[in-house]
């Protein structure tokens, strides 16, 4: 054992070509100069400069000279690369090469939430924030991993630890198998972030919006730390130091790119975005981020769609993505977006193939090379050393047998730090062609065909049948075995050498006698069926906005429309007008009256039909990404649903079909103070930011009762305060008291002289307290999830104590018990029409709740809290007529004008009034009737739903599906690898969903 170890050490030192200067050497020095000249090849000096018949000279790991007709100094090893290509090696930016993963502390299963960091040392309170981690400190050469990258042309990486939200810095290293001292190119090259908590066992943050808030707060903390140093915090110190570095943000999809960019805008940072390759689905918005991208080319495999029922598990958007993903790089190029290409997360076998596929789909070769050399070098700040072949730069390049984009091109060698790594041993010998084979005295037609890597050998007989020849090639030696005919059992065995266009040697005939043989190439042709010509640009369907069924191919625009002769529910003093016209123009309601002119617009005959303003859902959880709850703390005012709006939710379209035009997307009910709301119009096809209602007042979700005291969350959920309604009150008292104190701290700071300010430093900005302060200063408004009267009463009293008012109680199922108190407080009630009995705190809920609150003068509405019911809110409104006898006109306001008032939108929404937004629904019938269907739904004058067009779209969806399925079947037939059909998981959120959505280990 010992001996073996010594031997191993010996070998290791002996074969190490360049001994490290600071290291002692065991034995005799073996210093080599590493002078090489590569002649007669086509050299890409950089992505755009191609030199034919050129020479590259390297010396001691660096480029010495490059060009045509160079003098080659004596003592240089000359390599003739006639017909071959030299490219600067590729650079991988999205790598964890050489970085071992963080130890996982998370225990499996349900357990009490870990509130603060358990890491020793003066580090950040949250374990997902580790800016102090420098990848170069742990970087270890790993030749196995390096080899995989070298085989596909990479020569250097930017490596970082892919774990957590603030991940620390990245190191640039080459992929040579020397020791770390020599391969590190730049120790601290970049700073890395993501929205994923990774292995952090800490509960917070448990949602995407929580991760966003945490990054913001960390920046505020770091700003404060830089000025005050009131504590020692190595993480914040590092955060500030890392600011000067390129900031690379890993995202999961196109919307996360937009979210990260918005965050960056707020913090004054321009991120580089690592994307997931679906950028083409929102390319304009991506372009407007001005960020550079790092994109993968791990295009999805074909789904196995042979069984039509199985195939139904694959959404149209998945089918379309299979078809369009290879065009992503081309589309980005067309749009002038700078991007690097990464090979991360894909098999190295597929990389070059996919690169060529992208090329066939329109990605220029120039851009592809740029994206693999110059752009990554620029992003990592190492273009002085890597990314092109110029004097003084690191000698990182690879040799390809053909232009690398040609389907048969093979990487023969990859040189890293001026050292050779042979990739394809056989790359020299393209034996394919037709030969005259002479064995002893017999003549045959011998064809070597098939693929370059795995050629096929056949003897062609006169009757055009063929005999398969088994062949083995080792270096320049070749062995051939064959039978005279198919019926034969005896084999002829030949062995020989490979020469220029000729194979020759000796062998044994079937009878054992020794014979001579040779094969002379007579032509380069081989009769094998040539692969189908794939050179034409593949066609693919259109991008729809959003990238879902029923999406748009062109952006909708506001129309001028005259609705003739309708029953118009004005929600104004005019009440319900019979036989009335409504004109919408420029996105607004332009005229309401009789005998109106269309003013050049479209006329819709609405005889027998009803026109109303659109429905507004005060309580909705559709269109939200990765977590409706930040369930980890009792107060999470710092998070906002507005940060995580998901414009790509099919339920937006489905709500439109129910006449809904706007929704308040509420945080869940996990905590007494939840997050802020996103208030959107259902502008189907637009981006999250475009969907938001501009200048809308800000709202925030509060919650009371069983959810916030974690009553129905199992026996492990007994640690978080509060566990009782008593505790809930104190959470509010504490939060608002702290907010007041925070205000005072700032007020006294702001009053200081400049000198004192500089001396003292500004107080720490606290996102959570700022939002709480907005609430007590009536600049942000509360919508509070509530059930029983005691807690409803309590919260009103708290608000009064802090001199503000609760805006809305939502759910408010016992509102009928305290309607008089609510009226006195001035709070609105947004309730369910008839829900009850699903948990203990709703045993006294009654469907007459809405009627009583309304009767007592409380502003009353009905909400959905449910994606399905959301599209039938007109039916829910009718239940106010059924239960409690509210008039139809007033009941209709429960889902339109009243929620508009609750959300402070009634100055431009919620009724049919000249000058208000043209958010209009054309109903087939009395809108409170179960038989009524929304025939057309307009938002800001744009027709976003039309029942007749919907029928057309259904047909198109079927056609598009079928077209791609057939194409997929053909691709499978042609050998494309497949994956099992999988329906992508889809989440429908309710108030009390509080699962961790961003951890790396819980899936």
């Amino acid at each position, binding site marked *: 054992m010992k001996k073996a170890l010594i031997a191993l050490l010996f070998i290791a030192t002996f074969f190490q070509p360049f001994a490290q200067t600071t290291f002692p050497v065991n034995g005799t020095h073996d210093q080599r100069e590493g002078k090489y000249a590569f002649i007669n090849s086509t050299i890409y000096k950089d992505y755009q400069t191609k030199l034919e018949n050129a020479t590259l000279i390297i010396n001691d790991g660096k480029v010495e000279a490059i060009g045509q007709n160079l003098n080659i100094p004596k003592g240089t090893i000359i390599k003739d690369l006639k017909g071959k290509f030299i490219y600067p090696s590729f650079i991988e930016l999205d790598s964890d090469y050489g970085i071992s993963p963080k130890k996982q502390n998370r225990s499996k299963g349900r357990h009490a939430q870990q509130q603060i960091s358990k890491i020793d040392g003066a580090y950040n309170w949250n374990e997902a924030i580790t800016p102090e981690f420098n990848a170069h400190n742990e970087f270890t050469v790993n030749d196995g991993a390096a080899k995989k990258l070298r085989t596909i042309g990479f020569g250097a990486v930017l490596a970082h630890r892919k774990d957590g939200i603030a991940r620390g810095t990245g190191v640039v290293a080459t992929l040579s198998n020397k020791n770390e001292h020599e391969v590190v190119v730049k120790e601290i090259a970049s700073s890395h972030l993501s929205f994923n908590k990774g292995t952090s066992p800490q509960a917070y943050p448990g949602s995407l919006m929580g991760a966003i808030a945490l990054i913001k707060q960390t920046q505020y903390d770091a700003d404060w730390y830089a000025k005050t140093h009131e504590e020692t915090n190595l993480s914040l110190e590092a955060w500030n130091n890392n600011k000067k570095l390129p900031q690379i943000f890993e995202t999961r999809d196109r919307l996360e790119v937009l979210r990260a960019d918005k965050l960056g805008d707020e913090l004054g940072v321009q991120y580089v975005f690592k994307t997931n390759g679906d950028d083409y689905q929102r390319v304009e918005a991506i372009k407007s981020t001005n960020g550079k991208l790092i994109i993968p080319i791990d295009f999805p495999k074909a789904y196995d769609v042979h069984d039509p029922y199985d195939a139904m*598990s694959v959404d149209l958007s998945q089918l379309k993505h299979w078809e369009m993903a290879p065009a992503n790089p081309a589309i980005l190029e067309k749009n002038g977006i700078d991007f690097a290409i990464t090979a991360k997360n894909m098999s190295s076998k597929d990389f070059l193939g996919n690169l060529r596929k992208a090329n066939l789909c329109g990605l220029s070769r120039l851009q592809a090379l740029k994206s693999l050399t110059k752009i990554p070098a620029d992003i990592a700040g190492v273009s002085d050393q890597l990314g092109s072949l110029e004097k003084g730069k690191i000698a990182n390049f690879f040799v390809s047998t053909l232009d690398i984009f040609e389907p048969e091109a093979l990487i023969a060698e990859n040189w890293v730090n001026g050292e050779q790594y042979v990739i394809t041993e056989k790359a020299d010998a393209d034996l394919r062609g037709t030969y005259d084979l002479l064995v002893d005295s017999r003549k045959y037609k011998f064809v070597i065909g098939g693929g370059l890597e795995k050629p096929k050998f056949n003897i062609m007989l006169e009757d055009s049948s063929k005999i398969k020849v088994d062949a083995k090639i080792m270096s320049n030696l070749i062995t051939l075995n064959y039978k005279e005919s198919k019926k034969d059992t005896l084999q002829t065995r030949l062995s020989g050498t490979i020469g220029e266009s000729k194979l020759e040697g000796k062998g044994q005939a079937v009878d054992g006698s020794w014979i001579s043989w040779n094969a002379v190439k007579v032509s380069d042709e081989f009769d094998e069926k040539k692969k189908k010509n794939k050179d034409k640009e593949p066609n693919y369907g259109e991008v729809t906005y959003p990238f879902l*069924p029923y999406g748009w191919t062109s952006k909708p625009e506001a129309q001028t429309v005259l609705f003739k002769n309708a029953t118009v529910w004005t929600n104004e003093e005019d009440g319900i007008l019979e036989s009335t016209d409504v004109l919408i123009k420029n996105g607004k309601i332009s005229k309401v009256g009789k005998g109106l002119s269309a003013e050049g617009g479209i006329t819709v005959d609405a005889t027998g039909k009803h026109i109303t303003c659109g429905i507004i859902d005060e309580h909705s959880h559709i269109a939200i990404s990765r977590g409706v709850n930040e369930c980890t703390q009792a107060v999470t005012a710092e998070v906002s649903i507005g940060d995580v709006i998901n414009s790509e939710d099919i339920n937006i379209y489905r709500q439109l079909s129910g006449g809904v035009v706007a929704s308040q997307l509420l945080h869940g009910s996990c905590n007494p103070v939840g997050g802020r709301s996103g208030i959107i119009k259902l502008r189907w096809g637009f981006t999250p930011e475009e969907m938001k209602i501009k200048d809308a007042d800000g709202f925030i979700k509060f919650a009371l009762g069983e959810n916030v005291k974690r009553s129905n969350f199992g026996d492990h959920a007994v640690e978080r305060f509060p566990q009782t309604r008593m505790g809930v009150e104190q959470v509010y008292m504490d939060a608002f008291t702290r907010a007041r104190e925070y205000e005072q701290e700032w007020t006294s700071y702001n009053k200081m002289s400049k000198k004192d300010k500089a001396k003292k430093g500004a107080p720490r900005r606290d996102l959570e307290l700022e939002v709480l302060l907005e609430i007590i200063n009536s600049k942000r408004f509360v919508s509070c999830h509530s059930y029983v009267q005691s807690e409803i009463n309590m919260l009103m009293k708290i608000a009064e104590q802090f001199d503000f008012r609760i805006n809305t109680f939502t759910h408010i199922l016992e509102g009928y018990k305290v309607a008089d108190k609510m009226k006195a407080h001035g709070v609105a009630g947004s309730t369910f029409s008839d829900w*009850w*009995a699903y948990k203990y705190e709703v045993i006294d809920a009654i469907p007459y709740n809405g009627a009583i609150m309304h009767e007592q003068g409380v502003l009353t509405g009905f909400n959905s809290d449910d994606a399905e019911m959301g599209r039938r809110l007109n*039916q829910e409104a009718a239940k106010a007529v*059924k239960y409690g006898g509210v008039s139809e006109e007033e009941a209709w306001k429960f889902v339109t004008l009243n929620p508009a008032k609750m959300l402070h939108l009634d100055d431009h929404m919620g009724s049919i009034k000249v000058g208000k937004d043209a958010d209009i629904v054309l109903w087939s019938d009395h809108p409170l009737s179960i038989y*009524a269907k929304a025939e057309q739904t307009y938002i800001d004058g744009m027709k976003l739903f039309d029942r007749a067009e*919907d029928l057309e779209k259904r047909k198109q969806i079927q056609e598009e599906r079928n077209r791609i399925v057939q194409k997929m079947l053909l691709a499978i037939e042609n050998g494309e690898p497949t994956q*099992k059909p999988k*329906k992508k998981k889809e989440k429908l959120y309710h108030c009390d969903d509080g699962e961790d959505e961003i951890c790396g280990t819980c899936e």
Partner: protein
Amino acid sequence: MLLEKFKINTLGFFLAIGYWLLAINSIAQASVPSPGKEQSEPVLLIGATAHIGNGKVIENAAISFEKGKITKVVSAEQITDKSGMKVIDVSGKHIYPGLILPVSTLGLVEIGAVRPTRDFREVGDFKPHVRSLIAYNTDSKVIPTVRSNGILLAQIVPQGGTIPGTSSIVEFDAWNWEDAAYKADDAVLLNWPAVTVNKGWWGEPQDDEQNDQYTQQVNKIVAYFEEAQAYSQTSHKEKNLRFEAMKGLFDKSKKLNIQANQSRAISDAVNTMSRFDIDVVITGGRDSWMVTDILKQKEVPVIYIQPHNLPKLKEDDIDLPYKTPALLQKAGVKYCIGMSGSWDQRNLPFNAGTAAAYGLSKEEALSAITLNTAEILGIDKTVGSLEVGKDATIIISKGDVLDMRTSIIEQAFVRGRVVDLDDKQKALYRKFSEKYASEGN
């Protein structure tokens, strides 16, 4: 100090307690009103629009019933002699057969989130001997609120496992489960395995994937039924209670309700079980519209659950669940409409209403919650439509029962007994309306 205050307020305190006790008492009583008394005299309902349940409508109808059975269903003009009958003028109103709710856990669960009130899921995989009937709680405060919307009969089912147990059909007007039983042990339930499964849970779904256990699970079911069939053919010294409970399937005194939603699961279930000579019903039936041929061919009816649902796939027609009943109707499959849930099943008529908005005629939609249901449950000889000889299980609505805008049930009869339509929620409504009225608000 406290004591003093107490003294001063003693009188008021006791008055308050007294009032409170009264109020509590009245609520408690109203929560679950007493069942009606046996019909003592013939009743004639006259002047309403009668919706028979079989598609027919009689304007200005006259319906009489005696000793709990319907004696006449005619046009009012045909009634000349009203003597000896209690005449109820229901002009302008609508009469329907009592609505029937298939597949319900009402009475087996009071508050879903409170474990002691959940009585619908027994331990084990194959448990046909477990009977819903004896756990059915006639004093559930939820049931009267469902009855208030016109539902007078329901099929009460256990849940969970491959064979959750045996269901029974009850009337919503009874002192105890024995009274309530309309058809005891009407069906054995079977949950058919899914072809594709989601191994996550509703809060955290995973990607749908193939159920690699599918064949095995189906084989297990078939083997179980083969054994039960063999068992049913002889008598046994040692009884197997599970197989005893299965016997009714083979003599057709019980039906087999197979819960299946996916198209392939439905067709496989129908095909596979057709080797046994038993009455099969599909419940759930989400994709039943895709496999109508086999359903028709094997004459298997569907309890479709439920129109008020989101489509399964993003590219599905947005109104697919709404129009599925119409697709079944058009294809000629026997079907009725059910709902999931418990307390929310009071919205059954509105699920039918939505189906009417999306392709069914109103009378077809009505049949889907009355006569069709009775036929599928095997109780149509006595209920499900307003026909002479059938039970006087009747509701009277202010307007169209399928449309919540007008659906207000004013009177109801169960086998001629007058149903008290009060419920806990109405009592609370009265209590607080009175509070505000007395305070002059």
